[in-house]
């Protein structure tokens, strides 16, 4: 099981200019913010289930950028149908990394469906995202970086993580309009 915080930081270290990063509600947003403030980040702090469709809309609108979504198993499970939508309206510049700790850590570590019988890699494959794999070893971060920048998307990578609480790292602003306008300024420039 991977320690998610340093793993995310490793993936985002030396990020390229053509990368934009979105994160789903919960720990994923604190994870990406822990890698350093960047105008090219947009983190959800609510609207659970909407990060995958958001990332799809962004990827369709900006085909020359590489779009990376970090989100959790809880957020992903809330909108499983969106994986089918991504598969059937494919964007070659989108990578979804699911930080799967098999639990709703922020609310008291109740187990999610992936702690039981459900497997997000197989759900992604069954939905039609053929480039889907699971990572359990921290040394595999370079494989993920290769997928993000160089492989034909869409891709969905399940990163099996430890279910432990991590310190909250707040974004530049909790005001959504400030966050989205700042993010959009990174696309215009």
């Amino acid at each position, binding site marked *: 099981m991977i320690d998610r915080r340093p793993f995310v930081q490793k993936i985002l270290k030396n990020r390229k200019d053509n990368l934009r990063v979105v994160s789903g509600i919960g720990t994923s947003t604190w994870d990406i913010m822990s890698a350093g403030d960047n105008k090219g980040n947009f983190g*959800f702090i*609510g609207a659970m*289930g909407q990060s995958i*469709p958001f990332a799809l*809309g962004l*990827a369709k609108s900006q085909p020359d950028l590489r779009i990376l979504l970090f989100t959790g198993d809880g957020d992903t499970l809330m909108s499983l149908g969106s994986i089918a*939508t991504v598969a059937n309206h494919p964007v070659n510049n989108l990578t979804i990394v699911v930080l799967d700790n098999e639990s709703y850590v922020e609310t008291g570590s109740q187990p999610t469906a992936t702690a039981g019988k459900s497997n997000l890699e197989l759900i992604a494959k069954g939905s039609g995202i053929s480039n889907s794999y699971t990572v359990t070893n921290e040394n595999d971060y370079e494989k993920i970086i290769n997928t993000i920048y160089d492989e034909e998307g869409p891709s969905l990578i399940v990163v099996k993580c430890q279910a432990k609480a991590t310190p909250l790292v707040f974004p530049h602003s909790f005001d959504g309009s400030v966050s*989205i306008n700042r993010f959009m300024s990174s696309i215009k420039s």
Partner: protein
Amino acid sequence: MTGINKDWRNDIYGVFKDLNITMVSHVPDAGHTPLINLCEKDNEIDVVTLTTEQDGVGLSCGAYAGGRKSALLMQSSGVGNCINALALPNICRIPFLTIVSMRGEWGEFIPWQVPMGLGTPKVLEAMDIKVFRADYKDEVGSTVDAAARFAFNTNRSAAVLLSQKMIGAKQFKNG
């Protein structure tokens, strides 16, 4: 320019073209089908078929973040699916436009359509969506145009309800 075409769906399509709306997502409804077909034939418009209406909210917002305008087409039954997702355009002040074909109001045959039909305007207003309504074919184009401009000019969410009186209530036959 929003001329009045033989089919009011062409008027909505005209608004999409006028305002450079280039992404249209939907969970289909028979009332929207001619419009969906027009958009499918247009190479400048991406049509995204959703599995649930709420995903159209996130999709629209992501598209806007990337510089594209979009619209979500759905039936009134889908509005309830969108409630929490509507927090996203609200808190981010992202323009959001949806066009809703109404069921459960005018000559409805299926009782199951009534609860969400009755709830649709209330639910949208509860989420601070500006609700526009078209009851007659000759006002569809101007209403969608007004709603779209409201959304994209003021960075708010707007919904157009297309009344069942105008669309026509289907009467079902057993067997």
